[in-house]
């Protein structure tokens, strides 16, 4: 290619269809090299919403975020957890390197309060990250959150059911997670700078203790009340 044209193409204002957007925002490294390579700027987008879609809890969705959360907890600012479905377990969180002093759990009684809390946390700029488990999402509410994240320059993570994958969303990054034998399969459904078709498999640290179970597996399944 003509060297002067090459020079022009390096201008940050020029975006070509086949490359990912160069974000001026500093990205937050995920701690997984394979995933970093896929994400614009090489990490989680700060000052934007990230949607994490999954059909089943317990496949490693939090373990995917913990390296970034641990890094954020070194700085000032809360890690706000809004309406978590279960009890965040202190000992396990501490083991991932997250400073528990930075953790703020909010359990609003109503869905409207939960959305309000998430928006306030994002907008205030006092949070390094916001993790929210919200229901009854609509485009207007999502857009408000996205704008709040931009205002407060906060990394907002929204956990939603995989059913929502087909819905439109103003989030900057949307990931669909599926369990796989080697770890966690991450499909990037949306990112700034075009979609990717091939899922990337992220190797997850083994859950729990490493000793092998000697006992015969019982016949079990989870009854959700």
């Amino acid at each position, binding site marked *: 290619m003509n060297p002067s044209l090459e020079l022009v193409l390096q201008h940050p204002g020029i975006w070509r269809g086949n490359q990912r957007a160069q974000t001026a925002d500093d990205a937050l490294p995920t701690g997984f090299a394979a995933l970093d390579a896929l994400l614009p700027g090489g990490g989680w987008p700060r000052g934007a919403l990230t949607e994490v879609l999954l059909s089943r809890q317990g496949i490693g969705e939090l373990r995917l975020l913990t390296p970034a959360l641990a890094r954020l907890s070194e700085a000032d600012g809360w890690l706000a957890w809004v309406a978590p479905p279960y009890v965040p377990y202190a000992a396990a969180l501490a083991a991932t390197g997250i400073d528990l002093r930075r953790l703020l759990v909010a359990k609003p009684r109503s869905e409207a309060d939960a959305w309000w809390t998430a928006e306030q946390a994002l907008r205030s700029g*006092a949070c390094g990250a916001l993790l929210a488990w919200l229901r009854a999402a609509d485009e207007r509410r999502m857009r408000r959150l996205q704008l709040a994240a931009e205002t407060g320059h906060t990394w907002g993570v929204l956990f939603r059911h995989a059913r929502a994958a087909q819905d439109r969303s103003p989030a900057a990054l949307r990931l669909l997670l599926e*369990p796989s034998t080697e770890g966690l399969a991450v499909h990037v459904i949306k990112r700034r700078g075009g979609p990717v078709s091939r899922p990337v498999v992220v190797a997850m640290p083994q859950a729990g203790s490493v000793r092998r*179970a000697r006992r015969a597996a019982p016949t079990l399944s989870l009854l959700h009340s």
Partner: protein
Amino acid sequence: MLWLAFHFHSLSLEVFSRGAAVPEPLAVVEKQRGRTWVIACNDVAEACGVRIGMAAPAAQALADGLVVRKRDPEAERESLAGLAVWAGRFTPSVSLEPPAGLLLEISTCLSLHRGLAKLLKLARSGVNEMGYSAAMACAPTSHGAWLLAQAGVEKAVRDAARLETILAALPVTLLDQPPAVLEGLERVGAQTLGDCLRLPRGGVARRFGQSLVDELDLALGQLPEARAFFVPPASFERSLELPAPVRDAEALQFAAHRLLPELEGFLTLRQAGVQELELICRHERREDTLIKLGFAKPTRDAGRAQLLLRETLGRTRLEAAVHTISLRAPLLLPLSATCGDLFQKSREADGDLLLERLRIRLGKDAVYGIETAADHRPERGWRVCEAPAGAAANRHRPLWLLPRPLPCHDGRLKLTSGPERIESGWWDGADVARDYYVAEDRNGAQLWVYCDRVSGEWYVHGVFA
């Protein structure tokens, strides 16, 4: 020495009007020589033709809906004390000049407030915020400053010679002398202080008494002055009577804001902060309503209190009309002064504010931190806390713990690791004897399950998310 004098020329009026957001015609009357006279009225009343010195019935006939209040010296005294408390934010040397004056010795605190101009601006905005108006003047002597403020000459005089020329132009009626003396001065043709000073000293002292000469010497700094300084109260409780009963909690906000600068001054003087504030709303023939404001950390910032007050009052429903509000600081906590940030606002302050706002809307127990507890039983291995101290890490635990274990039946779980035996708690009746495993279900989710060693039943207790 540099003295700053405040003359609250409309104090008798403002004790009634400062709680109102919208001014309505108001006149304050006082009984003198058997008749009731208007001694002060606000602009709205003046626009209707009400004048000072009118008889009360005449004023009432002129202005429709004129609110006439009898002068309340007790309220004025309280207001002046409140103002003295507020002035404590500038200097500890505050002296009262009843009924409507304050004198502050500010030469020692000028650099703290970055100069006289900044201090005066701050004082002016503070007075306005509290709903008062004042004439302010500075002079090297307290009485000189007080005379200037009374005359409404808002000048900052720092030089004794200049003070003399400015004082010379003031009328003699400002002097704190009996009416007979003032009349006598008028009779000899002395209209201004300058005229008095030109009269022979000995003659003036013989004819009008030594006190006149002394007062002039005091104002010019030729006689040492002894002033008693105001001693602030040990606790803070200030009331404000509302001009009309209010039902709407948001309307209370305006009145409550009037009290916040006093609180800030009080806390600054005491080198203290508050973590809790009480706003007491008094009703007619009803129990008072108590509204509590909680801060994340001890603070003395009026701006923070204001934000919190707005959030709280916005969510409060009053059951009856309120006629008086009181602001009380139940517990003072030591708080040293904070340094201002040179470059940027810290996130810490924002964080506290966010925490306070969330707690107001969601309730105090819906927003919390977590910490680890020294107990082997998983359900007791964590606890809710306000400020987590330390954490004992354990990487064999799931990130999610179910609020209570769920029994599991049918279907297949694959145990991938374990068992980890936990037996504990026989001493408090909540004993557990369990074998914990990590299991994978058909959908690939990793669960933390246990087999109860007493019943042999299986439960899910956590999720490795």
